[in-house]
């Protein structure tokens, strides 16, 4: 399946845009999404941690994803 992933903060620079489309096996979970993203965008892994939100909720690692989900990648922000 194809899922659409919204990018926040530095993830916009890493993805090169405010969203990106990712191909995943049907019934993929959050860990598989992260692996696929980090494979395409190695800089994402270098950040060390980022929040995956599915339908405006924190996504646990084993949450199953569907094409209708609104998925957002929210990296940490340091400025003040």
């Amino acid at each position, binding site marked *: 399946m194809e899922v659409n992933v919204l990018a926040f903060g*530095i993830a916009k620079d890493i993805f090169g845009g405010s969203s990106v489309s990712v191909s995943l096996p049907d019934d993929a979970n959050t860990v598989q999404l992260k692996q696929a993203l980090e494979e395409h965008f190695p800089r994402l892994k270098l950040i060390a941690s980022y929040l995956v939100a599915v339908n405006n909720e924190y996504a646990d690692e084993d949450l199953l994803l569907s094409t209708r989900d609104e998925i957002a990648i929210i990296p940490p922000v340091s400025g003040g």
Partner: protein
Amino acid sequence: MREDWLRYSCQMALPGFDERVQGLLQAARVLIIGAGGLGCPAAQYLTASGVGTIGIADYDVVSESNLHRQILYDQSDIGLSKASTACHRLQKQNPGIKLIAHQVKITSLNIIQLVNNYDIIVDCTDNFDARYLINDAGVITGKPVIYGAIYQFEGQVAVWNVANEDGTWSPNYRDVFPQVNAAQVPNCSVGGVIPTLAGIIGCIQANEVIKIITGTGDLLAGKLLTFDAYSMQSRVIKIGLTTKTIIKELNTTNEALTITADEARKGLASGNIVLVDVRTDQEHDEINIGGLHFELDEIADNLGEFSEGKTYVFYCSSGKRSAEAVKLMLDKAPNITALSLEGGLGKWKPGVKL
């Protein structure tokens, strides 16, 4: 109404905001850490609303490039302590409250003592080390932390570590971001920030502080607010009800060794020092004071360029990125002598060429 509370009449007219509630604000003790882009508006509104005791902790001085968003400081304040300048100014706005300047850099050695004097901590800092330190100190002392952070057009706000009714605690910073590689996330001096975003996010932090103290409204506890000043879209992400982390002690603060501009200049004259610019290519093209140049995130790939026996002085515009660089060198190449230029190029007197 108490006659000296006439100034609060327009907030005491709010449903549920009576004299008792204004008394809760008067009795509250709030510590704002960081008197920069977020701390200025947060402190300004907490002062105006009548929070009785406000501490402002910042070791830094006002520099010219702060003025586009740090609205408590005048042009004539450049070079003065942020904490004491802010307190002095806010005291005139509201003589009826107590303002306390803490002109210290928070470390694992002093933060618990500092935090113990307050009920609520507002994280208005600008670097990850400070954010983790404040978060952990909040968890260890059992105090809520009102977190705010900004970059370019995007901001985040959350309320960490609120006591739930059943004795558990709401999530904290480490539940959302267990660790961060600071060198991979640019700060505002690299990527820029729109000043109005600092105002919006700082005011939202102050708003959550007032809500906690007065017991009003729905807190951003167990939630993370993201706000985009470019698209004007904001969303509230649910994190969960309770923390899954266990934080028992502070990580020891790992300080980058620094060198003053005067000492560095002397060392350069005697040939003992190599300068290393860690700013972006664009910044380097605009101002170049000589030496090597690697952007912060390129250093790890260029460790072979550094030799033992020399002293490398890393510099950036303010001293923040160069401190990250020195910590990275300490970690990856501990045999190389690496120092960070204190205050960055801002302290390197302009017009003096090498």
